[in-house]
């Protein structure tokens, strides 16, 4: 029998179930996160306007750069202020 040493971090990835989708958007606050990809803001603002027209509260957020994960304070702020988040992943 051969013994090899584990080259990995020996962590099992945590699989977290997604939150259930809300039945209705009425009364909820939707966050829109612009990850700072080129022209993503154009699309996301248009989307925000369309949602606002339906009487739903929208809050806009932006990452300082698309090249790095969102800073922790921003993630915490979003989590504490909205019920749902829409983000644009690419340009």
């Amino acid at each position, binding site marked *: 029998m051969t013994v*090899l*040493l584990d080259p990995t971090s020996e962590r099992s990835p945590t699989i977290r179930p997604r939150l259930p989708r809300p039945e209705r958007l009425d009364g909820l606050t939707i966050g829109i996160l612009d990850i700072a990809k080129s022209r993503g803001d154009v699309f996301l603002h248009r989307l925000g306007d369309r949602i606002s027209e339906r009487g739903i509260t929208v809050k806009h957020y932006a990452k300082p750069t698309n090249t790095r994960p969102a800073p922790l304070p921003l993630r915490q702020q979003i989590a504490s202020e909205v019920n749902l988040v829409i983000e644009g992943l690419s340009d």
Partner: protein
Amino acid sequence: MPQNLPHDGLIAIVKRDCPTCELTAPVLGELARRGGLTVYTQDDASFPETVPAPVDDTALDMSHRLQIEVVPTLIRFEGGREVARTYGWDRGEWERLTGIAALGQELPQARPGCGAKNVEPGVLERLKIRFNETGLKSRHIEIGEGEDEQEAMYERGWSDGLPLVPPSEERVLRMLDGTARDPQEVVGLVPPDIAPATVEKVAINAVMAGCKPEYLPVVLAAVEAVLDERFAMHGVLATTGFVGPVVVVNGPIRRRIGMNAKGNALGQGNRANGAIGRALQLVIRNVGGGRPREVDRATLGNPGKYTYCFAEDEEGSSWQPLSVERGVNPDVSAVTVFAGFGLQGVVDQKSRDPESLSRSFAESLKAMQNVKLAPSCDAMLVVSPEHHRTFKNAGWSKARLYEELYRLCEIRGDDLVVGAKGIAEGGPSSLAGKTINKFRPGGLFLVRAGGDAGMFSGIIGGWSAGGPRSSLPITKEVRT
């Protein structure tokens, strides 16, 4: 205190394959006759014949427990404790240790001993494993007799697609001999899992990549460099772009470990170049969990994501090496990591003056990614010796070439706007009438490498806009 050792008396550890042990055989015989001496023999249970019953230590257990480094070693025990030890043959020392005068009168006064078998390379590692003294913390993965090691490693997802060297405990211990750093020292947190890369985990991946122990300090420096926040390793991994870390090695270690800075420096065929770059990628994959088509979202990627590592050709250069330019002392070894991809060749076989050649370079640089994009990404220009000679002969310093290239990479905004040249890609109409540079200031890096023949340089393209908002090249000194 280990068992089977005398409460009071002498122990000698010897091997037949040692002229000094042979020399002392008559003395050992005399001490044995007087009583109180036990002789352990490392390689031949009948040696020395002058002693009635030498103890077979060919398994080297006792030698290891007594931490013998040289044979012969003579040790005195009193009251169950070691009180004195001497190595090799030295009449005065042996007389003092045994309390017997006029030992070995026919022998020379002194002779150095030989290396003990238990500390030979490969043997020491096996003994540490047998006695569970490795200090390694990684999980043991048992591969069954009937299982193919390579297939087992593939199945576990450890491979970049090519076969791996199986990371046995012995190999990992030998790899760790390449550094004085504590195996449990954390080099940094590897994205995307933000998992700690200990020196031990890096060593395991270095074994798999095919590294020799002497490469390990370079691998560790490269891992440290990509984990610097400013390099943005998470983004370099996750991007749809082409890039991966490109490793440039400077300083004395290049030659010490046999890296290639000459012909085919960016190609295949050199173990150090290939294995160091591959080890870095395996650390990202295995420790960080960064795998293609998972968090690595590259559209095409590039072949350098298997390995992309080379040495700068500093010898005969009139330019400061990249590391020195970036603040490292010339006699200190260092690695610089650059988020880069591929190689765009710059062929110029006719320019004989620096003005013409720098224009050639600039025109090629301006085409990088897309002629319509500026400022574009950072770039590393690998200048071949024959091209470098043109600048050297004309007295152009590296700083001069940087300045000239920057100036020559100015582009008319009219050529960059959306639709110009019949190409929809491009910048806003507000660029019209302006002058835009292809690079951010400081976004170009010059390195000298390649074979002595050939007027062929190469551009290693960078990532997105370059600079602090994406990835900055990072230089780290190589620590042993």
